[in-house]
């Protein structure tokens, strides 16, 4: 009887597993395979070249630049988004009874659902060196206007700001769910013991929300490493609207695949990206997972 149940369960889940394997596992496996081949996307021949693609990656200055930029952007977004989302979620949660609570939540969540390209175009205008409101504001306060989209450092900062602005809404929403599930008795007890609101936040909310922080930080970091459209739009070389191309990994992969016709080489970049994201996710799990919880 037990065996029949197992068989039934297995058969029931098999179609789903098959679809999952085909759309998720197979592409990863194929990417791994391609990374060991030389393939120009057009030819039927895909000669096996071992680790030659990876060896070339190690000496490729464009790949190194893309890797550095992507890492800075991913961690920059993480460092801005997580603390800010936590604080904002706490503020919104403690103002739940306010008649503006819905407005606060919506205002913060809207950037997450806004289409990426128009949003990036709007930010491109904000950062515009000559006509942008950001420089107008700086000038009003006596600061020197900056070439936001042209300076190698500032252009990366611009992408971090844009990505954080988009990621914040989602993170706040998830934290709000976390706040709503926290036991109120603990906060009441802390209040009776004389704990102030910031103390309750720091010593109760933050540790109790560790699992939420783990989830949000993994999602934020992974999406940070996959940054592409933001860099593409902010530097789009439309007539008369120049911008410095911030090279990120996904952009470099696309360029190698479809402009340079080097799919095997691009696949080796994808493998490196996959390895980085996996390692970082494991580290986050180790750092943030509560002791004893499996």
């Amino acid at each position, binding site marked *: 009887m037990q065996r029949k149940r197992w068989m039934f369960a297995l058969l029931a889940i098999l179609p789903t597993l098959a679809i999952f394997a085909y759309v998720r596992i197979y592409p990863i496996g194929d990417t791994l395979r391609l990374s060991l081949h030389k393939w120009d996307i*057009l030819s039927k021949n895909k000669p096996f070249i071992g680790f030659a693609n990876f060896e070339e990656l190690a000496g490729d200055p464009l790949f190194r630049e893309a890797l550095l930029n992507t890492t800075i952007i991913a961690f920059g977004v993480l460092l801005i988004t997580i603390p800010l989302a936590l604080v904002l979620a706490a503020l919104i949660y403690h103002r739940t009874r306010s008649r503006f609570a819905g407005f606060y939540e919506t205002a913060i969540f809207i950037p997450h659902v806004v289409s990426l390209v128009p949003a990036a175009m709007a930010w491109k205008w904000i950062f515009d060196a000559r006509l942008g409101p950001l420089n107008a504001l700086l000038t009003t306060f006596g600061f020197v206007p900056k070439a936001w*989209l042209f300076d190698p450092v500032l252009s990366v900062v611009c992408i971090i700001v844009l990505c954080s602005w988009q990621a914040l809404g989602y993170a706040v929403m998830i934290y709000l769910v976390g706040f709503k599930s926290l036991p109120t008795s603990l906060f009441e007890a802390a209040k009776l013991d004389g704990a102030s609101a910031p103390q309750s936040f720091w010593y109760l909310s933050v540790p109790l929300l560790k699992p939420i922080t783990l989830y949000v930080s993994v999602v934020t970091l992974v999406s940070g490493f996959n940054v592409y459209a933001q860099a593409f739009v902010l530097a789009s*070389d439309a*007539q*008369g609207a120049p911008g410095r191309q911030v090279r990120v990994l996904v952009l470099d992969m696309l360029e190698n695949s479809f*402009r*340079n016709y*080097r799919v095997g080489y691009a696949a080796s970049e994808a493998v490196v990206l996959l390895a980085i994201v996996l390692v970082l996710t494991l580290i986050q799990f180790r750092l943030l997972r509560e002791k004893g919880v499996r």
Partner: protein
Amino acid sequence: MIGALNSATTTSLKRRSGRTALLGAFMLTGLSAASAQTVTVWSGYPEMAPFYEHVAQGLKAKHPNLNVKVEAIALREHEKRIALGLTSGVAGATVIELQGSTVRRYLENDLLPKAPDAVVNFVKDKTNFDEFFTSNASYEGAIYGVPLFRGQAALFYNTDMFKAAGLTTPPKTMEEYTQYAEKLTKRGSDGNPTASGWSLRLTGGGQGIAEKFWINLFQYGGSVLEPTADGKWRANYANEAGRATLKQYLQNVHVLKTVTPEMPADAEAFERGQTAMFIRESWVIGDIASKAPNLTYATAPLPRGSIALPTNLYVKAEGADAKAAWDFVMATNEPENLTWLLKNVGWLPNRSGVDYSSVTNAAPAFNAFVNYPKDYKFFTLPSIGPIEEVLTRLAAQLTNAFRNASLAKDDAAIDAFLKSAADETNQILRREGLLGK
């Protein structure tokens, strides 16, 4: 009874004839649907969409059931679409617009069919096309495409701004370009430029930066790649011509400050009076006509010569669909359509023996593109597989160099930069077995 029968028969006949008419109408609709053909045009130049629609409209009389769908998107996205589309298989008949330098890989892999005999005869006819264009549409002696238009550069200059700066003629040497740029730059009270004297391509993505650099380099007698005696290629810019070209960029950006990377640039800046001059292809004439019709400007040939980058039309289709697609391609080369292209879009048609004077006389700006000096020279991008990679990687290097103020007054540093970039170019060629001796 008879009457009743007759009546019944009549009713029956009426019903039958009604059903027959319905069936006939259905079959006609079916036949019509079966004979209706759709040709999709993939273009990498959004401004070309009205031209293809115009050609389709003209074909209506000959092919009433032909439906032409024009899908014109930005060039870089278009290239990705072709790479993915041709390898995974495109549905239906597709006319594909491709530069001769890019198509090579697709032909090497049999991804595009040869042109039919009638098209071959048309393209090979020397009264229709110069050998340069025929050869550009061929691979291993066979014709695969039909030449349509070319990208050819000239100087565009704002005559009002020239007049205000006391300049009456366009610059004739590259040295004069810098001198003119200095005079033409408008500056604010703080000395910073508010309108550039000469708009240079300094930023952005893709290979455009390297192509523009190559045009300037060509004026100094250099080229990004040069053919070698063994039929291969090597980098040809780590030399005096390369140094002069890069130094001119750096001087204008960092020393004379006639242009900065963050300034509005290119055609849009020119149309708004935010730059006094820039080098671009003839499509800008059509763009100005539609966006800034009151702009007073003129064009001039470049000091030594220009790029000539032919774009051809290829077909991916089979059977009757292929015939309809090739008919469309041939229609694009009809004199009336080519004149329309020149007048309304501005790209230069490649077909010879067509009287374009009605357009060129009405728009003197075309003069620099058609009435150039006798010793004017042309170059094109080599039809080799890694040309895009060579240019894209050079563009990435150049972007960094343009930003580096310390290079501006240091010839040794410029030489070191050029050598490093040329080494990378040669490395790409070596990897592909194309590096010449």
